[in-house]
């Protein structure tokens, strides 16, 4: 996302004609914004951020404060809600479970994804397009459609309440997109690298390990981030597979805490706020990657 540079375009028209709007009309989708643009932007920001901000501030208030004036600022600031959540074992257990599930999902997706994409991108063999089509077809089947038999399968495999029972299916459903993104990425690595490696005596497997894998870092980060976020946020499959509170992930924890302590609005807000922190930090650190990954999936 390159920001448009501000080179003045010498137009045939005298600048005076547009003096009213300042330097508007220069370039880049037609110039700078006026007050109206900023007003719209401000509304968008407020509407987007307000719910999240309300949750964080609400966590610092007492239930009495919340009931008296939902929109007010904490007065006085109450730390109890956050302290209670942070000192509860269950919150940390949920977070740890989420982290384990998401990390396993991501690792499986990255390893199997790059392995599968490698021959599809750089070998020539009969049936290659057919195999690639299998992965593309995988995109057609959403988890929702398979959820009932998937749950029964996980149950029959004895993986109920196990992180693997969630991580492996999540990884399977993340693989199609992963291969579809990685394949052109690997194919675009220059041919010369491969020839040089061959001349130096590397086998194709050696090339994979020593050249291709290190170079596919950026592509792997993109697909890894997408898989991680999807797995971290997942709700439906964990809802069915993880019944035991000891094995549940953060989204399940948030849902059950919010129903269990429905009267304790401030407590729920504190719990939910803290549950958001990992996702928000991860998002801020990775937002370029996430955005580029999504855009790449569309642009190609």
């Amino acid at each position: 996302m390159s920001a448009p540079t501000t080179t003045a375009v010498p137009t045939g028209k005298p600048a005076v004609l547009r003096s009213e709007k300042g330097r508007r009309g220069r370039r880049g989708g037609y110039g700078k914004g006026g007050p109206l643009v900023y007003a719209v932007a401000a509304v968008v920001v407020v509407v987007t951020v307000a719910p999240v901000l309300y949750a964080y501030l609400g966590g610092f208030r007492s239930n009495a404060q919340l009931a008296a004036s939902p929109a007010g600022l904490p007065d006085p600031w109450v730390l109890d809600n956050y302290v209670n959540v942070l000192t509860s074992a269950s919150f940390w257990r949920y977070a740890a479970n989420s982290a384990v599930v998401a990390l396993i999902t991501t690792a499986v997706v990255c390893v199997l994804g790059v392995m599968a994409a490698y021959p599809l991108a750089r070998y020539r063999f009969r049936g290659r397009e057919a195999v690639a089509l299998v992965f593309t077809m995988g995109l057609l089947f959403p988890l929702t459609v398979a959820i009932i038999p998937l749950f029964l399968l996980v149950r029959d495999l004895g993986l109920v309440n196990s992180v693997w029972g969630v991580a492996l299916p999540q990884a399977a459903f993340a693989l199609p997109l992963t291969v579809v993104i990685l394949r052109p990425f690997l194919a675009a690595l220059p041919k010369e690298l491969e020839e040089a490696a061959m001349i130096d005596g590397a086998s194709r497997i050696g090339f994979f390990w020593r050249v291709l894998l290190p170079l596919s870092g950026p592509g792997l980060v993109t697909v890894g981030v997408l898989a991680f976020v999807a797995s971290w946020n997942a709700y439906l499959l964990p809802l069915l597979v993880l019944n035991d509170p000891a094995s549940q992930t953060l989204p399940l924890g948030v849902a059950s805490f919010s129903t269990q302590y429905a009267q304790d609005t401030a407590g729920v807000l504190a719990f939910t706020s803290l549950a958001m922190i990992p996702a928000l930090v991860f998002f801020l650190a990775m937002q370029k990657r996430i955005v580029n990954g999504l855009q790449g999936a569309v642009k190609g």
Partner: protein
Amino acid sequence: MTARPTSTGTTAPPRPADDAPPSRPASSGPSGPRGTRRGLSPAARKRAEIAFFVAPALALMAVFIALPVLQAVRYSLYRWNGLGPLDDFVGLENYATALDNPVFRDAVSNNFLIIAVSIAVQLPLGLLVALLLNREIRGRSFLRVVIFMPYVLAEVVAGVIWVLLLQPRGLVDELFEAVGLGGVTQLWLGDPDVALWTVMAVLTWKYLGLAVILFLAGLQGVPEDVYEAAQLDGASWWQVQRRITIPLLGPTIRTWGFLSMIGSLQLFDMVWILTGGGPANSTVTMAIYLINQGTDRGLYGYASAVAVLLFGISLVLAVLYNTLVLSKDRDDAPRPRRQKKVAR
């Protein structure tokens, strides 16, 4: 796609075909300094490599995608509670029951309404914001991050917050009262006439960022000199957007429409948290109905039929959309087509 034959042996003769019969004459013997230590011919070795790389991914997908999908079709033909033998074959009865069931039909129509409203609301709104953010305004990158943030939050987390915001005498009610619209306040999630619209408003909040980010990506592809030319001709900002930017953004918009449509059909998490499909089934979606009937009530055969119907509807819509809408892009711009399909 630039895959090319690569040979393991430095002196291997050009192979006739990549999939030459594995039993190459012994003349090629240990046909290279490396790679054939186990006496495999290059072609066989290559096939073994391909299998080694691709098989794990295919196996995982076979077990956790293909098998469950096939099982769904199979279960859908039985009356089955998920336990015991699968022996009460009922043919298409589950399908007939579903199609005849008013709640399922409500779910289908709710899903379609959600698709329609998502497109009717998020498209213009997303375009507006994307066009604004494409200008040189201060804090533009901050705005991009902010508007995309809801998309990254778990639906459950966002849903729980919205439940609290929308509860009676919650922040939303208070804000309406503060601006003198106290009469508008109501049971946002508790009134059957209102709940679905409330859910759609929350969905708009959650997914507008995705539209904006994708549209911004598309805007990157609009060449700068087009604007310059238009400017020389004295076109106004709005004329330029309407006549140039938006048409050039066509492929991106159509791709987003596809994503939005498929996503709307799968809707579960947010609705489950906000309303659970209620009140009085007014916000029920196909996925909610499926889970209600399946794991909650133990009607696994019936729920599988609902899942197959959901898939069938998705597939029909996807094919229709592909032939009626996305084909446009193929005709005048064959280039990005392949990648588009990818973006589901």
